[in-house]
């Protein structure tokens, strides 16, 4: 006799690919759990149409722009991105007939450039040694000079965290009665702010933990500290912990996800998993949920899955996440 299905059968039926964004699975990673009673769950955002969590954000940014009347057919959209948001926006813009220009640091992996071109985006490169700060600075400057351009500005647009407050967060709540800790990457801050706010509303004791990239020195090309940048949507008081992860550790843990759990994920996911396991280690029992942001395909050319970490020449000069 067949066992009854324990979760939703099939992935659902949708009118087009944009509508199929979200509703991603939550997968338990038993081998990474440091002790019985502490369960680690990966939310597989790589299962979105363009392969990253940014599909949610891109859809929300575009719909927000359309609702405001700022975006219409034939318009040009410009956005600073290290790749994933650009790729997600490119897919949606291609479907909707909008022109897209992305400003991206030249220090990203080759696959991101390929994907952007495949989806029809125009790329403007910012200086690699300034990381994402440089891309933001250049995009803000370009948008200011040309009023026909609309910049959704994921770093400051509330539609970004709202996508997670309304989507990612409720999906987690639907599957788990208890979440002791939620761990995500700190990029724009959207996931942490949106999911964090939603989880804390239902479970005030849930710890919201940020894993952040410790950018390699070659991409810290700031003239002064005043060149620093803090995304406007980040409210640090919502965070319970904020822990940086070196590129080396991120790569090691990305391999660990693959080798121990069969999960082929990107570098930020390895970093987040490392922090999730550390948090799990401090607990006696409960659920720890962490985000797998994207899949490993767009990092293949870097060699991180096949070569020892100490042989990765571009380890510190690449903008991994």
């Amino acid at each position, binding site marked *: 006799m067949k066992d009854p299905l324990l979760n939703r059968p099939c992935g659902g039926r949708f009118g087009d690919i944009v509508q199929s964004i979200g509703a991603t699975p939550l997968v338990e990673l038993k081998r990474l759990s440091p002790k019985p009673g502490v369960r680690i769950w990966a939310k597989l955002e790589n299962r979105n149409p363009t392969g990253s969590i940014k599909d949610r954000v891109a859809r929300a940014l575009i719909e927000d722009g359309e609702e405001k009347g700022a975006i219409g057919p034939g318009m040009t959209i410009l956005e600073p991105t290290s790749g994933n948001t650009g790729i997600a926006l490119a897919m949606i813009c291609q479907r909707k007939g909008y022109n897209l220009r992305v400003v991206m640091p030249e220090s990203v992996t080759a696959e991101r450039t390929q994907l952007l071109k495949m989806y029809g985006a125009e790329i403007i490169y910012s200086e690699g040694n300034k990381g994402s700060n440089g891309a933001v600075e250049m995009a803000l400057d370009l948008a200011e000079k040309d009023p026909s351009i609309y910049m959704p500005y994921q*770093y400051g647009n509330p539609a970004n965290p709202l996508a997670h407050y309304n989507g990612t967060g409720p999906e987690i709540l639907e599957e788990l009665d208890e979440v002791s800790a939620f761990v995500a990457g700190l990029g724009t801050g959207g996931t942490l702010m949106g999911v964090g706010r939603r989880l804390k509303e239902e479970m005030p004791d849930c710890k919201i933990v940020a894993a952040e990239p410790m950018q390699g020195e070659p991409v810290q*090309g700031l003239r002064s500290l005043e060149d*620093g*940048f*803090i995304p406007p949507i980040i409210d640090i008081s919502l965070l319970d*912990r904020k822990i940086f992860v070196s590129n080396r550790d991120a790569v090691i843990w990305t391999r660990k996800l693959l080798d121990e759990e069969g999960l082929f994920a990107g570098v930020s996911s390895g970093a987040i998993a490392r922090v999730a396991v550390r948090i799990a280690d401090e607990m006696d029992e409960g659920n720890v949920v962490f985000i797998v942001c994207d899949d490993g395909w767009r990092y293949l050319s870097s060699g991180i899955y096949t070569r020892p970490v100490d042989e990765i020449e571009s380890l510190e000069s690449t903008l991994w996440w």
Partner: protein
Amino acid sequence: MASVRIPPVLRPSVGGEREVEAAGSNIGEVLQSLVTSYPATKDQIFGADGALNRYVNVYLNDEDVRVLDGLETSVGDGDHVVILPAMAGGS
């Protein structure tokens, strides 16, 4: 004594060193000790009101002190303090 990692943007102010030693029982004291040894860092690390410059992130080992006890965060012997500029994470 704690060791303090200096980011590239601040190294000219500490004679080019990547890592320096500083004494103190909490982050505030460690940073003051740094400023005393290297006065050129003062206006970069602290604002006019004596609070941490908003574009400076300070980590005790690998945890941002702003999410711990701020400048009151205790520092023990052998702890590693890391100063990093505020950089937008990837997206």
